[in-house]
């Protein structure tokens, strides 16, 4: 573990923490533009966080410590997730501690805590949100796992950093399985980040909301932490998508400056990805909640087909 890799790791985390709200802002801005609304500022998410941190936290009388602790654990999970996803450099000292499977586990751990916290107050909306969140989760998690498996079979490793290194060295190549995995990943990422066909981040309509129902009882700094964690999750998912399908331009730890070269590439990739996400959200319509399992099952099965094709073609 050299100083270079330590600094790369540090930079990876700091960039994730700082850039994540910007990515959310970017997506929101493009969505507004595409929908002919006047767009909020790019910095709006930062202002929101700042405002929420300033406000006092209002807790229900009977909230347990679990309720207060969950936002911190959620943020911790998402930060760790961002720390092990190679966005800037593949020379990350933390990465060997958690491979792709553990990454899925990390998301699941965050989900478990936030769902439990939503049930803690004992309101109708909280439990409803928890149930729906777990519904999305139990289909999205295996689908994500299968996506990761398809790619790790090609790269011969479940470690994300090794996957990126090997795929990047190989140069552009088209694998049948990766195409399926890519489509499945897009579906999963939309569902997991509470995006339009599954959930609408802009609504508080009880019949449709999932994520907002979960966090209805949170306020002040706890809400800020959750919002930040949600941004980080989007960032982590973007990072995973880039790592699996567009692994080029990530530094492999040759020199400390390589990380700095990787940064503009990352920002460019994220900007394009965020724009595509906004387009995708604009052209699709919200699904009824009972179509969501179908949507996710499709993702899951596509990922399985990807893995099958991979095995069958003997790559």
């Amino acid at each position, binding site marked *: 573990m050299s100083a270079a890799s330590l600094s790369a790791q540090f930079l990876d985390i700091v960039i994730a923490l700082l850039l994540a709200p910007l990515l959310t802002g970017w997506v929101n801005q493009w969505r507004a533009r595409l929908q002919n609304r006047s767009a909020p500022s790019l910095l709006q998410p930062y202002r929101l966080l700042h405002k929420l941190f300033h406000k006092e936290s209002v807790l229900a009388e009977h909230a347990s410590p679990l309720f207060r602790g969950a936002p911190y654990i959620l943020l911790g999970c998402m930060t760790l997730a961002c720390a092990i996803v190679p966005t800037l450099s593949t020379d990350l000292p933390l990465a060997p501690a958690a491979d792709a499977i553990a990454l899925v586990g990390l998301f699941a751990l965050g989900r478990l805590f936030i769902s439990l916290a939503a049930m803690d107050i004992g309101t109708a909306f909280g439990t409803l949100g928890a149930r729906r969140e777990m519904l999305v989760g139990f289909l999205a998690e295996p689908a994500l796992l299968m996506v990761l498996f398809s790619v790790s079979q090609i790269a011969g490793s479940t470690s994300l950093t090794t996957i990126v290194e090997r795929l990047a060295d190989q140069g552009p190549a088209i694998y049948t399985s990766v195409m*399926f995995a890519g489509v499945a990943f897009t579906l999963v990422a939309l569902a997991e980040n509470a995006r339009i066909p599954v959930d609408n981040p802009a609504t508080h309509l009880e019949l449709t909301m999932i994520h907002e129902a979960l966090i209805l009882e949170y306020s002040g700094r706890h809400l800020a932490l959750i919002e930040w964690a949600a941004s980080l999750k989007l960032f982590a998912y973007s990072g995973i998508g880039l790592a699996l399908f567009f692994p080029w331009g990530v530094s492999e730890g040759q020199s400390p400056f390589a990380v700095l070269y990787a940064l503009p590439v990352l920002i460019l990739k994220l900007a394009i990805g965020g724009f595509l996400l906004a387009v995708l959200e604009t052209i699709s319509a919200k699904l009824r909640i009972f179509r969501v399992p179908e949507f996710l099952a499709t993702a899951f099965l596509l990922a399985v087909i990807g893995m099958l*094709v991979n095995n069958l*073609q003997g790559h």
Partner: protein
Amino acid sequence: MSGLSIQLIDFLAALLLMLSFAMISQRRILSLIHLFTLQGITLVATTAIVAHATGQEHLYLSAGLTFALKVILIPLLLHRIIDRLNVRWDVETLINIPTLMIIGIVLVIVAFDLALPIAKLSTSIARGTLGIALACVLLSLMMMITRSKAVPQVIGFLSLENGLFFAATASTNGMPMVVELGIALDVLVGVLILGVFMFHIREQFESLDIRHLERLKED
């Protein structure tokens, strides 16, 4: 034979398979026609790449023919049919999509299993994709089984032909021109006849639900 064209054909094969899966899980008739057109484009591209890679001139002609027929003519005909029948925005009720996809996965496995010995015999550049082509054929057959309206069934039939065409191109580096022309003509005539049939079914039963045809059997 460059690695690039093999990769491109692999890519197109995957696209074809994905389009087949999209077709079995698509409820809207209009989207089905779009998907069918996309399949046609995939076929054209495949044929052109095989032609380029193997240097067979007549395959370019075949690609052009496919383009004219499957990307322009038949979709146009289908569009006209659904306009005239006024079913453009029809949505079909389907049995549970995940179940269909699970059956689809089984079909993919079976298809690859069947294709393995054939692919070993083949000397073609794209033999690796034979299994996918076969899978597309089986998936189209399944699509025809699960649909109850006439137009999706016809599209299923056409997509089945697409799968066969792809299999032929992939395993034999393209068929002789005579065979190809014959098939093209067959498909065209088939679509025309089926179109006429659909109007008649519609006149008879005031619906395109082919379950009504069950009434025709003798008791």
